């Protein structure tokens, strides 16, 4: 069982805001879903994983980049060619 506190911890880890009004319902749904997942607890396999594809590479060739204008086109208030972001310090 996960508690409302657990859900809040995960929300913090995920950087996802949860309104206090949603918390009870989220926790309840969480427990229902996680309870369903418990079916996997007894599962065992030999761990032999098939991997249909291996070693997919590209050659080290330089292609044409986006123009600076296009690179910035979807960003907000770029400054001198830089993309603006919230402060980190």
């Amino acid at each position: 069982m996960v508690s409302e506190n657990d859900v809040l911890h995960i929300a913090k880890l995920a950087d996802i805001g949860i309104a206090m009004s949603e918390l009870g319902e989220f926790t309840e749904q969480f427990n229902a879903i996680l309870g369903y997942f418990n079916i996997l607890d007894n599962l065992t396999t030999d761990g032999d994983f098939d991997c249909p594809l291996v070693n997919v590479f590209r050659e080290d060739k330089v292609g044409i980049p986006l123009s600076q204008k296009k690179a910035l086109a979807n960003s907000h208030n770029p400054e001198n060619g830089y993309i603006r972001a919230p402060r980190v310090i």
Partner: protein
Amino acid sequence: MTNEEMNVIIGLEVHCQLNTSSKLFCACSADFRGDAPNTHTCPVCLGLPGTLPVLNKRAIEYALKVAKAFNCVVLEKSEFCRKNYFYPDLVKAYQITMGDNPLAVGGYVEIEDDAGNPKIINLTRIHVEEDPGRLVHMGNREYGHYTLVDYNRSGIPLIEMVTEPELSSPKEARRFLNKLRAMLEYLDVFDPEKEGAIRVDANISIKGHERVEIKNISSYKGVEKALIFEITRQKNLINRGGTIVRETRHFQEGKGTTISARSKETATDYRYFPEPDLPIICVADWIKDIISPELPDARRDRFMQQYGITANHAKTLTGDLKLAEFYETIADVGAAITASWTADILIGELNYRDMSLGIVAPHASEFKDLVTLIRDKKITDKAGIEVLRVWLDNLRTGTKMEKPTKIVERLNLARESGEHLRGIVEQILASNPQAIIDHKTRKKGALNFIVGQVVKETRGKFDPREIHAMIAEFVGK
């Protein structure tokens, strides 16, 4: 407990940019330095929705070259993973890196310990990952702070090399990094001249205490400084009865100190899982086809054998690929004299000027002319140094392109001998009678003063031995 009794344990995680032409997962040029921000990007390295990574084969080949040179074991199956964390320089909110199944494990490299004895440093692993973008902090308290981001660096290939915690001092750590740097340069997978091409995280602890991680030291010279500061901090704390807490600290390059990172960052859970957009790689059998170039240790041994130079000269000259190549292009002037003028004098003068060999290397033939003049006794050692200094200053400022031979001419430094010297010696002796008296009363070093005066007067154009002999003619031995 005294400081001497506290054993220091250091482990390093070294990130080096591989000098491929294109980025790790897209075709954008990896040669971005000096270019305007966000001019080396595409939908992939901007992390635009719907884009997918495609692995640059050369990056894996380069990493394998490194793995072979460091005697690592390449895994049968390697797997890229996502390391999830949120930061504006990380376009996808995850870094594609390697987790439980890296490219290679184990391996080792030999360095010297602080007593000069050989010491093996073991590696834990080598893996390949992508570099994030670059942040610039802007604004001020009054109008608010914000961040500017340049994604030109986003997706540059890195190898991360992790050592076992086996380094015992900051000096040892520096020697390890010098060795690593030299080897990567010899392998031609890395360009040490590029700013930020090597970045280091250090784990450091005092035996019996918790370990502290210092993140993102962005110059290899900074590593020794950061470690010295951190060891002192930890030892002082222990001596005062304090407790070292397990934490991440940031090195402040300007101040030379480390500060604690916020606890929020250290609590990060990276939630690694295999990268579903990239198939696994199985390249263990490629290793047999990789031809390793001659590496620093082998070249050092060859230099000693082939050129008959001292171990110290050979070590210095081979500690940097460009220096070794520089030496070899001019060694035919005379192996010993060239070794001495390169390893002892040129390097000293370059360091004094904070110049790199890169500026001098294209003009190797001019330096060769200079050493030839000295070898042929056309100029004295002293004049040689004067010419070297003028020549280097010219190269540094780029003002004048004057060859050493021209400098000798212009400054009239060609070595002289014979009768012209006699007159000068006579004159100096005449104006320094006390020195002669001192000499006659067996005062030690009295004549050195006279020799110095003559050298000064002749601007080093005469061989000091000839000056000695001439003075002896006048005043007796």
